[in-house]
């Protein structure tokens, strides 16, 4: 078959497609709804927006405007996830067995700006002001004292978000997370009678869990102090609560992972609960941790115990 016949057919196809697109475009023009983020039309002119675009977002509230105008966070980093070797051990098939070594396999988010649905974090003005003063303190070169900087347990969200490995061990009564960073430990109690609420509050709070099908639902509260949920200081008050929904996902692709959806419940700083999601890849090869010994520096009696940071104003 001669090629010029194919070229003619191809050109005819292009003309037809172009005509169809032109018909669609001209037939669908209406001057009503601008696309999201589109600039305003010049005065006196009707904007030619497609009615197939999404509706415009509502205008930002004063609180949202206040938060979104803060200096942006540092870009997050994160390792690519390599495949495991063909003979690497896999987790058990029991969805209630979360044991093993896991590693946060997404980019570290220095500041959580949107929830897992892409909606802006629902700060109230008190929460927005706390975030703003923390963000601005760093940029002024006078960052505030926080748990991480003073070698104290930083709370579940910060601890889990860091891209360092942790192991999970579990029994019928409790589940223990042991972290490389901060030589941290998080205890999740399945039977409160076996591990009642302690007399004093812990940095990691008190976490009680139950199984909802194949999802472990953990409620953590009673924190000893307010938490920084991330490096930039997204706040959680000491009265706040974290609800983690943890499930093991294995799609038989030799890349099992844990999915942790964390719901932040804190009427002190937010207008409603909001959630973020993280995944943690299976990595038995990272079971041997690097030593973490922040006490050598932070505990040095010849230097300031606050590591040179400044006290945060009380609310």
């Amino acid at each position, binding site marked *: 078959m001669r090629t010029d016949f194919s070229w003619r057919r191809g050109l005819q196809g292009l003309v037809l497609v172009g005509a169809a697109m032109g018909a669609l475009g001209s037939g669908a023009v209406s001057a009503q709804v601008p696309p999201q983020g589109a600039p305003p039309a010049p005065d006196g002119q009707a904007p030619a927006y497609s009615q197939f675009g999404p509706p415009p977002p509502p205008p930002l509230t004063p609180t949202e405007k206040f938060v979104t105008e803060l200096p942006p966070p540092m870009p997050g*980093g994160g390792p*690519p996830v390599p495949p495991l070797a063909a003979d690497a051990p896999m987790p058990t098939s029991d969805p209630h067995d979360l044991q093993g070594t896991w590693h946060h396999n997404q980019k570290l988010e220095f500041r959580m700006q949107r929830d897992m649905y892409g909606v802006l974090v629902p700060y109230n003005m008190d929460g927005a002001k706390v975030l703003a003063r923390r963000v601005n303190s760093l940029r002024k070169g006078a960052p505030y004292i926080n748990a991480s900087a003073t070698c104290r347990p930083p709370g579940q969200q910060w601890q889990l978000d860091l*891209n360092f490995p942790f192991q999970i061990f579990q029994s019928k009564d409790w589940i223990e997370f042991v972290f490389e960073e901060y030589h941290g*430990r998080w205890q999740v109690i399945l039977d409160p009678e076996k591990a009642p609420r302690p007399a004093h509050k812990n940095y990691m709070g008190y976490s009680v869990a139950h199984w909802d099908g194949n999802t472990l639902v953990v409620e953590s509260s009673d924190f000893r102090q307010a938490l920084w949920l991330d490096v930039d200081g997204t706040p959680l008050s000491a009265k706040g609560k974290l609800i983690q929904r943890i499930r093991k996902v294995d799609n038989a692709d030799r890349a099992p992972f844990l999915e942790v959806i964390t719901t932040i419940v804190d009427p002190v700083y937010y207008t409603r609960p909001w959630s973020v999601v993280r995944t943690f890849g299976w990595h038995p090869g990272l079971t*041997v941790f690097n030593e973490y*010994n922040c*006490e050598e520096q932070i505990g040095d009696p010849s230097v300031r115990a606050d590591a040179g940071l400044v006290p945060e104003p009380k609310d």
Partner: protein
Amino acid sequence: MDMLTSRARHSLGALLAAVVVAAAFTTATAAQAGAANLEGVWKIAVPTNTLKPVSGPVPFTAQGRKQYEENKRLQAKGAYDDYDITLSRCNSAGTPRLMLTPERFKIWQRFGVLTFDFEWNRALRQIDASGLPPKVDFLGQALVPTMTGTSKGHWEGDTLVAETTNFSDRTLLDDLVPHTFDLKVTEHLRLVDPDTLEDRITIEDATYFKQPWDAVITYKRQPAALFAEDVCLDRRDAHQPAFPSR
């Protein structure tokens, strides 16, 4: 400041994690035939501050004796940060001193790695008996001496033989006995009976000791329990003992 170093560490360390992990399981996992199960909660049977030789006194060299006497003098003065930063800073007590803790510890044994999780300050040490090649270490972290050292182990029948090197010289073997960077600690860990764990510790450090010497510590199994959240720095700031002794 740890918050700031975390940022820097992520920008470098995280990028290397892929290579690290890719190298970790390129060979078959080590066989664990004959490995005993040392998992459980343990507590020292006879609390002591001192790592006592099985026989005779600690065989100090002249240099070792001199440093030991200096430590005693500083202890009498209360100048803890000059010789024992575990007491002054809550620094990890390291290997083998962590094994002298009067408090409990747990042993977890997964993927051929034994993780010792101490009630004291949530301290950790690990013995890698997996037989796998070491993680790829582009940042040279393995070159940095640590308090707990680098422990590699293998099983000889029902006994875990662990050799630890690459020590920082900022720890003590117990509450007074010093060591240098050249310290090598060899442990033979075995279950004497189902509820008794024995750790035979051999100390080698030619700078401070004339010959290798052994100490034996025995632990009794404890009921399963969750450890309280112990933050040594808070206790120290409250003028409580940083590393509780017997």
